[in-house]
């Protein structure tokens, strides 16, 4: 972060301001053993010497409020300054609308700063007015659609004040713009989970949505993960949903070898084995084959992992064959 304001021609140090003559600046007390020293600019030193003074004097005035603005401009990560600024705002009964505008401007300059977003959240809590939050976070997400701070603030505002109404449209647009935006997929789950609910109809709708997007780009982990997430709410789980299974097998037949597809079919096999519901398509032998294909060709970077899973499935395969033998023996005996 750059040290802003040093080139300000019109800047006057606090120590040279007549209206501050009654305040004695308090220098930082580094002690005798300083390490990791930051060679702050003269302006920084001046502003923080006066900040320490007003904090010590517990001065809550207009000029102190202004001083905190200079202090956070020099270091927006100073949580003490932000907290003291809030104390002053409260004590002066300042109009918080202008503070919202101010913090919005700071967020635009430092969109990945924890303290600024926290300040914003406290203001919204004080005002109990979230009417600007969706727009604010939308703007931040336009700049960076995966900004974690913006998503966190947005989810908080939506959850606290029940602002779900148009969120699905927002999510839809983001996914349309970039189908690989994992944050947007996560938000989709958030909306269904908290607002629309996982009714049978919604589960089927969301499955279709995910499949549609996978058809469009097959090698997209975000869409595959979402599909799994939705299936957590399907009573038939991943091995029992005929639509999903035929979709996967169709892709496989059409030569798609995306690691996400193969991993998904492996999981279908795994579940079928655990439930004792294996079929000619989904069984340990198939899982072994797929693990080998991933390890040897389609996902070499994780070959050790696929080989490890392969060994596990080989044991199940052995059991399957033993069972078959037993069945045959029984048939013969009959």
């Amino acid at each position: 972060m750059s040290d802003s304001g040093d080139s300000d021609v019109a800047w006057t140090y606090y120590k040279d301001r007549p209206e501050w003559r009654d305040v004695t600046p308090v220098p930082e007390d580094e002690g005798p053993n300083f390490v990791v020293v930051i060679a702050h600019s003269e302006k920084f030193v001046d502003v923080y010497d006066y900040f320490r003074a007003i904090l010590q004097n517990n001065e809550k005035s207009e000029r102190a409020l202004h001083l905190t603005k200079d202090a956070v401009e020099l270091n927006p990560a100073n949580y003490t300054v932000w907290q003291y600024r809030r104390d002053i705002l409260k004590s002066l009964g300042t109009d918080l609308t202008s503070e919202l505008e101010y913090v919005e401007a700071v967020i635009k300059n430092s969109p990945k700063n924890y303290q600024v977003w926290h300040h914003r959240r406290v203001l919204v809590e004080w005002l109990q007015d979230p009417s600007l939050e969706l727009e604010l976070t939308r703007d931040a997400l336009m700049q960076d659609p995966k900004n974690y701070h913006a998503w966190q603030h947005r989810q908080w505002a939506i959850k606290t004040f029940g602002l779900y109404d148009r969120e699905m449209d927002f999510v839809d647009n983001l996914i349309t713009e970039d189908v690989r935006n994992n944050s947007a997929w996560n938000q989709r789950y958030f909306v269904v989970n908290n607002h629309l609910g996982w009714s049978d109809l919604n589960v089927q709708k969301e499955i279709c949505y995910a499949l549609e997007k996978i058809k469009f780009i097959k090698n997209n982990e975000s869409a595959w993960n979402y599909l799994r997430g939705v299936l957590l709410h399907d009573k038939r789980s991943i091995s029992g949903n005929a639509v999903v299974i035929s979709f996967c097998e169709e892709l496989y037949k059409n030569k798609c070898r995306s690691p996400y597809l193969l991993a998904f079919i492996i999981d279908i096999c795994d579940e079928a084995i655990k439930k004792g519901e294996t079929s000619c398509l989904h069984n340990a032998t198939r899982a072994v084959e797929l693990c080998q294909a991933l390890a040897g060709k389609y996902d070499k970077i994780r070959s050790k992992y696929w080989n490890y899973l392969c060994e596990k499935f080989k044991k199940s395969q052995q059991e399957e064959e033993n069972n078959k033998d037993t069945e045959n023996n029984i048939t013969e005996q009959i």
Partner: protein
Amino acid sequence: MNNYEENKIMAHRQHVKYFMRFLNVLPSSLSSHDTTRVTIAYFAVSGLDILGAISTMTLDLRSRIIEWIYRLQVHPNKENGDMSMCGFQGSSTVNIDLQENNHFRCGHLAMTYTGLCILLALGDDLSRVNRKALVEGVKALQTEEGNFAATLSGCESDMRFVYCAACISYMLDDWSGFNIERATDYIIKSIGYDYGIAQCPELESHGGTTFCALATLSLTDQLDKLSEQQVEGLKRWLLFRQVDGFQGRPNKPVDTCYSFWVGASLKILDTLQYTNYGSNRKYVYETQDTVVGGFSKWPDTCTDPMHTYLGLAGLSLIGESGLLEIEPTLNITKRAYNHLKSVHVKWQNE
């Protein structure tokens, strides 16, 4: 920038110098790190430790750092004995007597945690740490939800500080300030539909917060609270973060720091051996600056102490030669960890 052939050798000497510079004087462009100088010192000292270079620091420098850290310790209120603000501050920005505003002079969990790491790496015996007070300071920051705020003076609470609180409690060998049940509940609620773990419930799964959560479960001996499905899902999610190096979230670019965050998470789950060490190593080396030392998050970008430290820690996890072994849960060297264990024995015998 050098090509890969030149770059794949550890610029050991340059990294030592690099960290030494950060322990000295930093340019004014780093003013936004003013309140978190202890974390920079942690990256430098612990980085030197991984490089096996603590002994190359002069005794004077080592003792200056130790004294500086102790000076940042906030002690109980002299009048009423209140310990809720106790911990380490990150710098001397507001380490003065603030009279009626004295609640602004308070510890910060990330600074307390990294401050203790520095003391351990430098071989201090923690005898001047006010253990009872630090534990009370931790206790004051746990929320109803089970997570932790970083500090008393107006701060967000999330998974990062759950981890810092767990490390502090572990290092002080005292869990009375940390409600394990509530923290575990918070962690489990923060597991996503893709089995990764987020900063708070329902947010997007993230490599850094997944590490914080898993390391906490390991330090509190609660890993068995995860179901088999959750563990297998987590392993898969973490393993899929490898592209060549590691990314922090699906469909995001690879970044040097995740070789540690994701690597250590996998190590905790005893699964790191299923990753591809060669590709991981190659990526991290591509972000090395062999001329002035340091690692950056991406090739050909600016180095910084955090990525330098985490790059080295990530390489250490996969057994890079010339580096000391790392203890993944506390993110300190095994050497510092063994020292901690000897301090614990001493306390137990007191």
